[in-house]
């Protein structure tokens, strides 16, 4: 059992948890992720490490309720635990391994969409701790969905918050902000790191290609083991097939085939729909899912 020390609702359907996992906390670096499994029958769910405390041995995760497993996970309280919690998985962000002096000369822009703020935070924090101030664009659908603003503010250079509906901060999608910053507000960046829903990363990459701004994305395909054993997470990156769990999750966004990746993430849509139905209806589930044989 991996004990949950804190469970907090950040916004509608977005939950933050601190989990006791000393081995993971000791070795993790920005860019890496964990896989959690709630109970005996649960799925293995990959989640990015949002923060870590090496002394306390804790890992912070932030997740959105999108399907059967994450909805169930949202019911866990402080004091409960995960049956399994494995990590750190995947490679660290490339800059962690870069020469610090070279890195200090680079101007970095982070683009975080939705829960993407969670994986962006440890990276910006790491840079801050190493004396580098990176700019951050933080986007959300609406005011209530903006998360980790205070935390990011404390570690970022400039923080630009934007909402799709204009209810808070700037107005419009993150791509609009990036375009404005570079083309209208005279900002120059050497590297962009974009993390969020796949569709957002795709459009950021289309824009930054035009702006000739090298862009790194963090991919979140369907995974099973997370150790390179199954190939469920494979992606087309340039002319190569990469396994996101061991070769990534971060890749050169200008080389990733997003359309294929988005199709692949829909693979279990109908199966997952049934699982969701089963969960919502619980014991009253009497057919309709096409799977259980209904009442007979």
């Amino acid at each position, binding site marked *: 059992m991996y004990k949950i020390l804190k469970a907090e609702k950040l916004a509608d359907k977005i939950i933050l948890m601190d989990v006791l996992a000393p081995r993971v906390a000791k070795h993790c670096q920005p860019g890496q992720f964990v896989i959690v499994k709630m109970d005996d029958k649960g799925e293995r769910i990959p989640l990015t490490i949002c923060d870590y405390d090496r002394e306390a041995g804790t890992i912070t995760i932030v997740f959105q309720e999108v399907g059967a497993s994450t909805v169930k996970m949202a019911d866990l309280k402080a004091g409960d635990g995960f049956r399994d919690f494995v990590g750190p998985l995947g490679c660290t962000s490339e800059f962690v391994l870069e020469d610090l002096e070279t890195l200090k000369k680079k101007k970095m822009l982070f683009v975080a969409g939705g829960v993407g703020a969670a994986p962006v935070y440890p990276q910006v924090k790491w840079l801050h701790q190493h004396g580098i101030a990176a700019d951050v664009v933080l986007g959300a659908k609406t005011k209530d969905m903006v998360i980790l603003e205070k935390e990011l503010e404390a570690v970022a250079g400039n923080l630009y918050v934007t909402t799709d509906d204009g209810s808070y901060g700037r107005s419009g999608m993150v791509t609009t902000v990036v375009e404005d910053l570079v083309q209208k507000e005279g900002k120059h960046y050497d590297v962009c790191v974009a993390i969020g829903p796949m569709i957002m990363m795709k459009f950021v990459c289309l824009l930054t290609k035009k702006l000739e701004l090298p862009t790194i994305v963090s991919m979140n395909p369907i995974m*099973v083991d997370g150790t*390179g054993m199954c190939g469920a997470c494979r992606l087309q990156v340039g002319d190569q*097939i990469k396994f996101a769990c061991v070769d990534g999750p971060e890749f050169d966004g200008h080389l990733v085939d997003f359309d294929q990746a988005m*199709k692949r993430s829909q693979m279990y849509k109908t199966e997952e729909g049934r699982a969701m139905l089963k969960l919502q209806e619980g014991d009253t589930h009497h057919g309709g899912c096409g*799977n259980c044989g209904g009442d007979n």
Partner: protein
Amino acid sequence: MADVLKKVPVREQDAKVRATNFEEVCLGYNQEEAMEEATRCINCKNAKCVSGCPVAIDIPGFIKEVKEGKIEEAYKVIGKSSALPAICGRVCPQESQCEGKCIRGIKGEPVSIGKLERFVADYALEHDIKPEKAETTNGHKIAVIGSGPAGLTCAGDLAKMGYEVTVFEALHELGGVLVYGIPEFRLPKQKVVAKEIEKVKELGVKFETNVVIGKSTTIDQLIEEEGFEAVFIGSGAGLPMFMGIPGENANGVFSANEYLTRSNLMKAFDESYDTPIVGGKKVAVVGGGNVAMDAARTALRLGAEVHIVYRRSEAELPARVEEVHHAKEEGVIFDLLTNPKEIFVDENGNVKGMKVIRMELGEPDASGRRRPVEIPGSEYEIELDTVIMSLGTSPNPLISSTTKGLETNKWKCIVADEELGKTSKEGVYAGGDAVTGAATVILAMGAGKAGAKGIDTYLKEE
């Protein structure tokens, strides 16, 4: 009187019934049947079967005890050489090992050594007969990486010698391929695998799941920071290969590892578990080994029409004869001398068909098998919705790439000597699929034993 030239038949689930369930196919012998089969052994002085067994079990010796109804004694004889008899009795390729050498096989059928081993081991599990434990520990700490047959055996042997052993496993369950690869209908998880592992626990071995060596910690850290004096690597060969043909990233194309992991480890075949699996209506499994048979028979049980697509002929199928036989009985269709060229994808990214080409056998290749060559112009298309690639696996580089001074060969296999499992790094031993590439349970078990001996020798010399 039964025909002494033939094996005492073993009871099995009816093919039609079992094609729709995940219960074990083979029901095994009862004591009466086992004792009768045992009388077929003529107790050769210079028993060839023993030389056919990779761990040299005293086969005539244990069969003699079975003949006399002394099953517990028989178990002790096997236990001297094998740590996992209930598993090996079920999954060893007996036809090319012990039974392949049996004198009885010249004129008739060989003695059913595998089924006898299984009977004895199951008897021991049912009657809770335990291996003997070391009386005191010697205080030396050993780390074992991976809980497949190699790691389990090495850990068990070292614990019996008195070492304090901790096994680190990356997944959330113990057993390696025994739990994530080989299906329930061939190797029951609770009834057999879990119980064999329980025995290793009773020897005092500690297990830590969810630790990926190379990520959660490294071998160097285990030695320098956690006080382990020696390490055995039994991390298997889990990396799946793909063909590199067009369409391979389509939805509905899986590695056999993914398909089997979903079904076996995550229990996706059971509705009450959360992990999904795509059953498929018409499935092609590409390959001809045990893994391909397992994937095919799993898809069949999930309701699909299943074709094995294999580029050589039936004689070259690397799978156990029993598995091929069972697969055919259950209705798996074999498209032999056939090789995929391209996978067709619809507008939503789903598989809709596959182009294949007919093959013929040419000159023998390096493996001694006749090389399959394409017959020009013989391409044709088949409609299907799922393709499972079962083309073999290679060792995962997670450990070798994070361990200083650990030598690997060009296939990414860890270099280790056969006799003691010694690697290029001091205090580090290795064995099983991580060293040989994908092989068999019994060879992995043998390598685990060798590694235990190697570590014991090393620490005694220190």
